[in-house]
């Protein structure tokens, strides 16, 4: 197995571990941390394939993923803080009503 395939497998494993974290964590903030881990796995695969192919397009897409991650963490943490302040929710199993 070549080194590029090992990098791609590592990125996919990091992505799937982040997905598992989204499924099993109780706290809303750690669920957001798991989504950041998923984005990191995608970035790793993009840069690895890019370095193998000898282009720079994948690194530019990784740059955009970084931008979206920064925007997502700002909006997501704002949502969690306002949800906690309005309802007192902190765990993912507490949010069971669409509107109440």
């Amino acid at each position: 197995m070549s080194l590029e395939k090992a990098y791609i497998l590592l990125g996919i494993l990091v992505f799937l571990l982040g997905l598992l974290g989204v499924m099993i964590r109780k706290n809303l903030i750690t669920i957001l941390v798991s989504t950041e881990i998923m984005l990191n796995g995608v970035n790793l695969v993009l840069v690895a394939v890019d370095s193998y192919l000898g282009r720079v397009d994948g690194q530019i897409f990784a740059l955009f993923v970084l931008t979206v991650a920064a925007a997502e963490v700002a909006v997501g943490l704002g949502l969690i803080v306002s949800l906690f302040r309005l309802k007192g929710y902190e765990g993912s199993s507490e949010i069971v009503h669409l509107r109440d």
Partner: protein
Amino acid sequence: MEWVIFSFLSLWLLVSVVGAIFVRNPVHSILFFLSSVLAIAGLFLSLGAELIAGLQLIIYAVAIVVFYVLVITTIPWEKVKRFEGIYKRELIFGLPAVSIIFGLIAYLIIRGNLAEPVGTVGDNVREVGRTLFTSYLFPFEVASVILLVAMIGAILLGRKEE
């Protein structure tokens, strides 16, 4: 030599990620996430992407992790203590599902062939900058709009209701 660096960094990364999703305390989880970000920056450096490695350190390891820690300090600790750890039943169903998906994707990747390399990159930062400001100029401008919208949304969500 490349395999040695890859093995060390990937072992570090996997230990950090598994710690980040399985440790009980949210603050410890964020510290494990910081460790995994550092490992990924090392992997980027070993892949020859210096610009993305530096941005990863600046954006993730400084901005985002500090933001998480600041938000955790605004939430009372007793409330956080009630919801730490993981759901056991979801782990029982989720772990086999994720393992099966990883097995299928790994079979595809190991048996498949990668595309042929099309060229070599000399100076990485120079090439990234040139491509970013010629071919990808419009998505770059759209990214600035996304950041502006996220900033306005965060301000609107975070203000106190009168």
